[in-house]
């Protein structure tokens, strides 16, 4: 498959572009932020996502979805990134759906229709410490009657306070198991925290939370493979969103370089800034390429997909971080003001950097996979 959009993908890209630009541009984020919107996103917008069909991209056709792949999900996510659109798309329709795709027909029918309609929101409870380290999940789910009893704590559960269901990864007797935990269960304590990018995450404590056996996603003790699938989708998805953030930051910065005049000319005429802008362009282009490649490998089910996903997440994070840092610096004083958008890109980049493992985590993972 060539590394550019085919006609169908281009149509999807155009429609996602138009949709985000008109329905969820940066002003939309500002509005929600300034209102201190409790959930960090608009449920009405989420409903529109459903209507646009975005939420069904990774849902199989037999489950009512479009049966498309990570490449197409990435098209939506890059536009989300570019517009800083707040939505539960990544947790719900990408990572969450990929986990559900590995679950029973019963469970799929329980959640997928609501997701497709833009009604249901999912959150992911994976991390237990400040850094992403799913290898070291310590939280335990003990057998209790026909079901399980959950004890422990999770953090960085984005949309955790507003989610209808949280996918929780926990240790069971002979491995990991993923659970679908409905909101407001007895023994759950959900503390919402506003993050730097105005998203709302949660610390979730589980104190003897009783779950039925049908809360298990896939099979008991076999959650490792489901988690891998969820993580792969989340990682390549967040990488795509990160490329959007980096590209969006670059675009407004390049525009500013053409407008802002100092010393009698546009600052974009100064070669010092030109070279840095051109280097940045190169980095963003390369990041987009490796993200697209990784999406394709995932969609092909390639054995190389996992390593390429880590490379993509790491490269996207480095490139976007450069973009927002150069963006603020090249904006000068106004880049530091809340009035200009570039700071919002820096903030979103920061949150995305940590989500599903940062560049360092994934660089190390690539080294390990390469046997060193």
């Amino acid at each position, binding site marked *: 498959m060539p590394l550019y959009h085919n006609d169908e993908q281009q149509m999807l890209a155009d429609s996602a572009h138009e949709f985000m630009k008109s329905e969820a541009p940066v002003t939309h984020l500002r509005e929600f932020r300034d209102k201190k919107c409790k959930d960090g996103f608009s449920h009405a917008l989420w409903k529109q996502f459903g209507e646009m069909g975005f939420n069904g991209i990774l849902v199989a056709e037999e489950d009512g979805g479009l049966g498309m792949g990570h490449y197409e999900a990435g098209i939506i996510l890059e536009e989300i990134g570019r517009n800083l659109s707040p939505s539960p798309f990544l947790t719900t329709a990408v990572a969450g759906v990929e986990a559900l795709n590995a679950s029973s027909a019963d469970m799929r029918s329980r959640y997928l229709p609501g997701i497709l309609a833009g009604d249901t929101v999912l959150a992911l409870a994976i991390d237990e410490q400040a850094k992403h380290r799913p290898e070291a999940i310590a939280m335990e789910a003990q057998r209790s009657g026909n079901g399980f009893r959950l004890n422990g704590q999770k953090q960085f559960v984005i949309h955790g306070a507003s989610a209808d269901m949280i996918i929780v990864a926990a240790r069971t007797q002979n491995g990991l198991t993923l659970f679908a935990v409905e909101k407001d269960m007895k023994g759950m304590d959900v503390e919402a925290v506003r*993050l*730097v990018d105005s998203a709302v995450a949660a610390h979730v404590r589980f104190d003897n939370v009783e779950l039925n056996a049908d809360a298990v996603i896939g099979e008991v003790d076999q959650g490792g493979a489901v988690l891998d699938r969820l993580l792969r989708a989340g990682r390549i998805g967040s990488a795509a969103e990160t490329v959007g953030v980096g590209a969006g930051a670059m675009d407004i910065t390049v525009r500013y370089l053409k407008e802002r005049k*100092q010393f009698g000319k546009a600052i974009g005429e100064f070669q010092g800034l030109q070279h840095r802008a051109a280097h940045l362009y190169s980095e963003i282009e390369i990041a987009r390429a490796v993200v697209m490649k990784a999406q394709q490998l995932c969609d092909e089910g390639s054995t190389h997909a996992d390593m390429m996903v880590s490379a993509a997440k790491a490269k996207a994070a480095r490139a976007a971080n450069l973009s927002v840092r150069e963006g603020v610096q090249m904006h000068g004083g106004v880049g530091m003001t809340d009035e200009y958008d570039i700071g919002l890109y820096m903030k979103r980049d920061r949150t995305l950097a940590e989500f599903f493992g940062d560049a360092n985590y994934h660089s190390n993972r690539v080294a390990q996979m390469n046997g060193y």
Partner: protein
Amino acid sequence: MTDLESFRTETRAWLEANCPPEMRLPVKGDEDMCWGGRNFTFQNAAQKQWLDIMAERGWTVPDWPKDYGGGGLSAAQAKVLRQEMAKLKCRLPLSSFGIWMLGPALLHFGTEEQKRQYLPPIARGEIRWCQGYSEPGSGSDLVSLQTYCEDRGDHWNVNGQKVWTSYADKADWIFCLVRTDKNDKYRGISFLLFDMETPGVSTRPIKLISGKSPFCETFFDNVKVPKHQIVGEVNRGWDVAKYLLGHEREMISGGGVSLDMPSIGAAYADIAALDPILRAQMAEFDIETMAFRAMSEKFMDEMKAGKGHPAQPNMMKYAGTELNKRRHELIMAASGSDGLEWESEASGEGKKPRDWLRTKANSIEGGTSEIMLNVVAKRILELPGG
């Protein structure tokens, strides 16, 4: 015992006797600093007492002449005073742009009358000043400023706008660069002083990406200023400004990086143990820190001995601020999702991310990194052009 040694002994004894214990606690933030001025609310009685007794000796400005409210100390004595205050952890009795910036300018360029009028109230913390340099259209290119100051015969009439005027909403007076000749870029600028309560002056605070800030936008709408409130000659204000910019950059170059900044890897050893790539970055950064610390020491030593290149503060400002930004990127990486929390008690209402975002201004304020590099290229390396 030399004179200096006896001065040290006496000073220490006096400080021990007179500095209130509250004024020997560490300064945790802006709220612990005394800025003075008409509308200042003292934190407590001790803060006012400390200001008053220090001002009485002229020790809010120890090396200014006694005639203008200073302590009349020699450079060596002033250094001893600083050292003894540091040893006893005495807080600064007064922080003030009047002391740091306007004072030196007046001492160098002011008339005898201006010195007698403006300096003593600065020394006593009665009048708080702010600085009006930058404008929306003139950041790095300061000299392109447009705030127009028209000669109306018996007074000046000022119209325009300033930005980045720190604490303009709290200051009593402003010292300000204004255009008095539209036809001469450099020799058309004057250095003007006026009361912020003059009709036509208004201010609006600027919200930064890191949150609230002391910075303001300041607007002048037909502000009438008496003719004598110009420092130096009319149209020669750029000389005063250049003199002060030098001061500002030195201040910033010293302040960018804390000299006893500890090993960042040691501070986050637990994270470093789990993340070998971050550990490598921290190791590199620790080396940069140690090296820059040595550079700071060398720079100070050379400055004191009059040996350094006069443009060296530009290099220091560049290197120090870039390093500090990098440091906070590492802190964010080490802090993971804990470091993302913006509004939570556990995070001190987002202290880490706000500090991180605030550092992004380091390489912009007081001269951007790009301007610093231009100056180094031209004045130190003597590269041609522009």
